[in-house]
């Protein structure tokens, strides 16, 4: 519970009904997915609860957020901002904290059709924004986490690879003007939003040196450098006809497949050929989706339960599967893309099993367009998280995947993670092969202590392997311990990161549990 004086100050900012420091509320907010193995990795009890915050606050505006942050500085209470809140990086690292649940900040501020951007507040989900932009024939980038995740959170604070990345890029690269409450409580407006005259949202860089790199860093600061209250994100042409009609009932809706969309699932047989195929296909800049995934994952994306996965044994033997989806708005465009695919497939000796050995439910195409494929990762054991997370060349990504196989198999043998034969991986191209992302989804049982421990140990060993075998930087290098470990191997970046933190957050109130703390040379352990 908060001290009376602090509680009163927060109540005056947001209203009595928008702050709760009771045991019930704060306990509920202490829970999150994957918190159990994060706890284990920090030598704590492997339970799905983080430190319990002192209060949960629901601000409704930038001004309220600013005042809360200023109060946090005054009383040296840490704050952790969250919106849709999926994942352990939404959790506070200390009990001396408050959670800012940005649910009440849910406006789509602007859709600029001419200049192709949309401005959103934190609690606008990807699906909501896409549904609105589709009305103009436009699309957005959604992260692999799914359409229920916050667009703003992905763009400003956390990773952001997506299935449609070949066409819609990576969240970090789609950020335009940003409204940012710094840990000190100052409001910083990035890019063209910061112009004195005629400020607008169309550019994320300048005036002067861009601060987007500081905002995003490698994967975002996960509430470690203040609160983002509005962001402009790039819009893209919707890939096909925007009519999105589903009949029937949950879960297997019958989707009226748009005319010009087609899926290809091909086995490249080995990693060398897969690398060649990925690059070659992406060279042609025709793919809406271009993802490599393991044979298990290919089975999973066409399944809605573990039972229905067994029917897909036909894919189980694929060595290096590749999923490509092309989509077009006109017949001419579609004919062109199909022709190109056909030509490239012939060149690479690839065979499409869709339409021959397998025909997906129509719903699959709806899920491609709505970026709901990642959610299928939960059907095996109910829990999964990804090791790796490289963002690099195709060659490096695949090398990381290959090296990971025996490591994963070691933990599979122990029976602590599910057996996907070590191959569990998802790799996507960004911006038509500009670069690639790879992560290794790993299935564990969050209710089984041995599995949680095994998952934690596997993640640690995977991170270590990435470091020692020069496999690029994985996603989850976060927190002091990991940054202090990795930094010396990477030109001591952690010292610079720490300086940024100290400069932007002199009082250390923006929860740095998943970022870095400002203590010079010190380690701020998560409690």
């Amino acid at each position, binding site marked *: 519970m908060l001290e009376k004086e602090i509680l009163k100050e927060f109540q005056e900012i947001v209203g009595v009904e928008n702050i709760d420091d009771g*045991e*019930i*509320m704060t*306990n*509920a*907010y202490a*829970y*999150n997915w994957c918190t159990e193995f994060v706890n284990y990795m920090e030598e704590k009890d492997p*339970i*799905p*609860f983080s430190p319990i915050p002192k209060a*949960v606050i*629901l601000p409704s505006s930038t001004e309220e957020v600013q005042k809360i942050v200023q109060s946090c500085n005054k009383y040296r209470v840490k704050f952790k901002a969250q919106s*849709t*809140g*999926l994942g352990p990086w939404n959790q506070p690292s200390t009990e001396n904290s408050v959670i800012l*649940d940005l*649910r*009440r900040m849910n406006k789509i501020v602007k859709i600029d059709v001419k200049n192709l951007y949309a401005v959103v507040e934190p609690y*606008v*989900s990807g*699906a*909501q*924004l896409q*549904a*609105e932009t589709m009305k103009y024939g436009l699309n957005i980038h959604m992260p692999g986490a*799914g*359409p*229920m995740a916050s667009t703003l959170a992905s763009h400003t604070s956390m990773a952001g690879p997506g299935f449609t990345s070949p066409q819609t890029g990576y969240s970090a690269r789609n950020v335009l003007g940003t409204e940012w409450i710094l840990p000190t409580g100052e409001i910083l407006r990035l890019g063209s939003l910061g112009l004195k005259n005629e400020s607008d949202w169309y550019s994320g860089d300048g005036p002067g040196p861009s601060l987007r790199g500081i905002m995003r860093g490698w994967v975002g600061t996960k509430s470690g450098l203040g609160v983002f209250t509005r962001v402009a994100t790039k819009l893209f042409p919707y890939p096909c006809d925007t009519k*999105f009609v*589903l009949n*029937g*009932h*949950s*879960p297997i*809706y019958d*989707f009226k497949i748009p005319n010009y969309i087609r899926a290809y699932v091909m086995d490249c047989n080995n990693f060398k050929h897969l690398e060649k195929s990925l690059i070659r296909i992406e060279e042609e800049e025709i793919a809406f989706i271009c993802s490599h995934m393991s044979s298990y994952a290919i089975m999973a994306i066409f399944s*809605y*339960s*573990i*039972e229905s996965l067994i029917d897909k044994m036909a894919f189980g033997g694929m060595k290096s599967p590749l999923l490509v989806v092309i989509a077009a708005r006109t017949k001419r465009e579609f004919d062109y893309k199909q022709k190109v695919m056909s030509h490239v497939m012939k060149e690479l000796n690839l065979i499409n099993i869709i339409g021959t050995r397998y025909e997906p439910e129509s*719903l699959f195409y*709806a899920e491609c367009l*709505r970026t*709901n494929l990642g*959610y299928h990762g*939960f*059907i*095996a*054991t*109910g829990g999964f998280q990804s090791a790796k997370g490289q963002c690099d060349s195709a060659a490096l990504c695949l090398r990381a995947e290959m090296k990971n196989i025996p490591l994963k198999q070691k933990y599979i043998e122990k*029976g*602590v*993670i*599910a*057996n996907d034969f070590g191959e569990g991986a998802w790799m996507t191209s960004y911006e038509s092969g500009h670069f690639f992302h790879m992560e290794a989804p790993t*299935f564990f049982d*969050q*209710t*089984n202590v041995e599995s949680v421990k095994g998952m934690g140990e596997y993640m640690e060993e995977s991170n270590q392997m990435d470091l020692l075998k020069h496999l690029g930087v994985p996603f989850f290098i976060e927190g002091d311990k990991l940054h202090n470990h990795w930094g010396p191997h990477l030109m001591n970046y952690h010292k610079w990161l720490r300086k940024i933190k100290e400069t932007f957050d002199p009082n250390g109130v923006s929860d740095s549990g998943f970022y870095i703390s400002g203590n010079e040379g010190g380690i701020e352990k998560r409690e």
Partner: protein
Amino acid sequence: MDEKEYQKMVKRCVRCSVCKWIPQVQIKSQKYASACPAIDIYNYHPYSGGGKIILALAYEMGRIKPTDELRDIVYKCTECGNCAVSCKYMSPLEPLEIIMKFREKLVDAGCGPMPQQQAYIEAVKKVNNPYNEPHEKRTNWIPDDINLDPNAKVLYYVGCTSSYRRKEMAIAAARIMNEAGVSFNILQDDEFCCGSPILRTGDTNTFEEILNKNLDVIESKGIETVVFSCAGCYDTFKVDYPLSRKYNFKVKHTVELFAELIESEQLKLTNNVPITVTYHDPCHLGRNAERYEDWDGDTVPLMPLVSINIPPKPKRTGSKGIYDAPRNILKKIPGLKLVEMERIQEYAYCCGAGAGVKSAFPEMAIKTAKTRIEEAEDSGADVLVSACPFCSTNLQDGMMDKNSKLKYYDISELILMALGLEPEKLKQAIAEVA
């Protein structure tokens, strides 16, 4: 849900928040993306389906105690089941059943139901209805010209809300059955509350007593089919009663019966009804009206951590609710145009009244109703129609509060109009609380 399954499931929420939204692929706009009235109004995560699962886990782990604050959060929920539809799109979790079981536990701990709900439970025990109206007046709705057949094998189970509050619906249903030549009877003084408002508060002991009493009465009369005009009674008899005690008679909602009668031309809809309507799917006629199916399969551990069910366990996804029958009826009414809201069928937004919310949290009930009414207005309809007297009450209360230009009719009233008969003008326009 048995205790073993409950203990397993409360540990499995991944806090993905899909429970707050309608199925992701069905989202057509930002405004109507939401599934959960509770979190829409109260905003804090524990008000969502997933949030309540987390509370259930915290309670089981002893991290939180049964307090008034906990009780209020858990009971600020209409148990509409929309969270379950979205969650079960891909997950085997059962949010609605977890919430219901959690309420049972709170009742056992002396921390539920809400005082207002306890009051109506006492009324049911005393006078067989939650409105605390005299039992003798239960059949006052019957006009003199309704024909009842004491030997009929079809029983019209009127329900408390139609008997005491929404009499126009009971009268309409009875007139239609007469018009179609369907021989039916009613239970008269032997009709008691179905127990739905009690079950949903977690007082399963009282519910069991009511269930047995009702089934004893009906079975003693050799009834073959029981027809309901109330979605709540229908769902309770169809889905909840068989979990405790099997019975041999069929159950039907009036929309199912009337759709059949229209199809077989026993009812001829000839009168023009030139209105544009939108249909609200009651939760208890739609997604929740799906029976539990027995499963006698095996859980096969394929490998460590991964098991599958052979054959697959039946999953109640809301797909077998009654959606087509009312729409088919509406499409057969001459001159009537049906337009759909964005959230329909198994992902329809709740009216806001269920599971004791109307009595314990009337402001939540009205706010939710107003959200639904706005959606109806945005559909372009000038009439909102549904097939449940409790939805009717709350939606009409919401319309009044909002000064909506929409009219409300029960589907049976529209059928009466199409038959050239006058719907009963006995609507009570005052705000209702059970």
